[in-house]
């Protein structure tokens, strides 16, 4: 399918679409296991979170974390404010608890990939993806298919994505691979509905067999609301290509979204929001949006899960 072309269908919003010929795969289970890949030397995990030296999450009261932004000092658009950065960015709520991951060549950090995206209009973007199988990474729908940008020539399937697993600045411990083979669903590509903002990148190699992948599954509301979500990705407000991690208890859920106060920034779209059960890591959402009070990801519910299983085949 060419960029910008949409399937002529009014099918279910979770109907998968692709820029490649489609293949159907039988669906069986509600939980997919992870893989640590080869020579993993996996980092340990405990009590729902990763064991990262020096990482302490501040649990401040919500009233302390969320203060209304000052609007009285807004400047004219022609007077772009220069100088030091603002103390708080919108997607960083309260104290910035993110910690840099430097041992990105080991599992699980190497399943997270820095993405360099070339859109249809040749504009460049950064995002994050995570392996769910030997040749498949999950990411946000708006990473693979740009919708309603308003910029001539930009909308539609992106041209290509350069995938760099476990990137640490200029270091690419597993090299990079370029893909132009993508997946998303009707609900995103046709409607631009953020409830369906998820997609996948199919790479032309089995690099996932080396770096491993996260499991994923479907859990009920009560289960998620008692779980800690973990996110590691490649935010644009940190040194280029560096991976940063944070975790926090899930704040709320609805039928199609998971909300959390985990600190993120532009460039982390597509990151896994995952939980750890007995040391085993499972994706529960695909991070996609920064919000005024909470950030959010597309929840892995049964139709999403079914597409993920088909896409990792």
């Amino acid at each position, binding site marked *: 399918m060419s960029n910008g072309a949409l399937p002529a269908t009014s099918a279910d919003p979770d109907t998968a679409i692709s820029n490649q010929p489609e293949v159907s795969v039988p669906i069986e289970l509600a939980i997919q296991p992870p893989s640590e890949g080869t020579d993993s030397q996996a980092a340990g995990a405990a009590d729902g979170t990763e064991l990262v030296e020096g990482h302490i999450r501040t649990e401040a009261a919500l009233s302390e974390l969320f203060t209304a932004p000052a609007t009285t*000092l807004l400047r004219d658009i022609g007077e772009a404010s*220069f100088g030091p*950065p603002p103390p708080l960015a919108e997607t960083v709520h309260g104290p910035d608890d993110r910690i840099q991951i430097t041992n990105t060549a080991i599992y699980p950090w190497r399943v997270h990939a820095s993405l360099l995206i070339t859109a249809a209009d040749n504009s460049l973007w950064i995002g994050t993806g995570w392996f769910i199988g030997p040749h498949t990474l999950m990411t946000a729908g708006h990473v693979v298919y740009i919708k*309603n940008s308003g910029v001539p020539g930009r909308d539609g399937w992106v041209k290509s994505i350069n995938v760099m697993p476990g990137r640490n600045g200029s270091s690419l411990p597993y090299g990079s691979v370029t893909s132009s083979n993508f997946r998303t669903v009707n609900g995103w590509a046709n409607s631009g509905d953020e409830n369906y903002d998820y997609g996948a990148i199919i790479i032309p190699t089995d690099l996932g067999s080396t770096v491993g992948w996260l499991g994923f599954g479907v859990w009920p509301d009560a289960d998620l609301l008692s779980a800690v979500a973990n996110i590691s990705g490649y935010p644009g*407000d940190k040194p*280029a290509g560096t991976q940063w991690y944070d975790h926090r208890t899930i704040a709320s859920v609805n039928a199609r979204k998971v909300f959390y106060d985990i600190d993120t*920034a*532009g460039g982390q779209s597509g990151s896994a929001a995952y939980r750890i059960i007995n040391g085993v890591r499972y994706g529960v959402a695909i991070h996609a949006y920064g919000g*005024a009070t909470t950030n959010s990801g597309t929840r892995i519910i049964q139709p999403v899960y079914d597409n993920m299983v088909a896409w990792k085949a």
Partner: protein
Amino acid sequence: MPAKPIIVAGVVRGPGGEKLPQARVFIARGPVPVPDVAALTDADGRFTLSLPAAGSYEVACVAEGCAPSSAKIEVTQQQELRLELRLKAERPRQ
């Protein structure tokens, strides 16, 4: 995203006024949830962002060797805005 999003086209310049390629530009604050991506400026330091709704935004910019910066803007529907971000040199670490 609305049918006609608000477009912010801009350029990022370094301490000497030079156009900065490969700078990361993203929405750090907005009135509604926004996609968590960042644009990279092109060879001429240019970028174009789409804003989903009218309101107050903070557009942030980060580039190697420069101090991070941001611009606060107030936008209304049907606007196309021009923005210039000039970054200061990064302070040497003590």
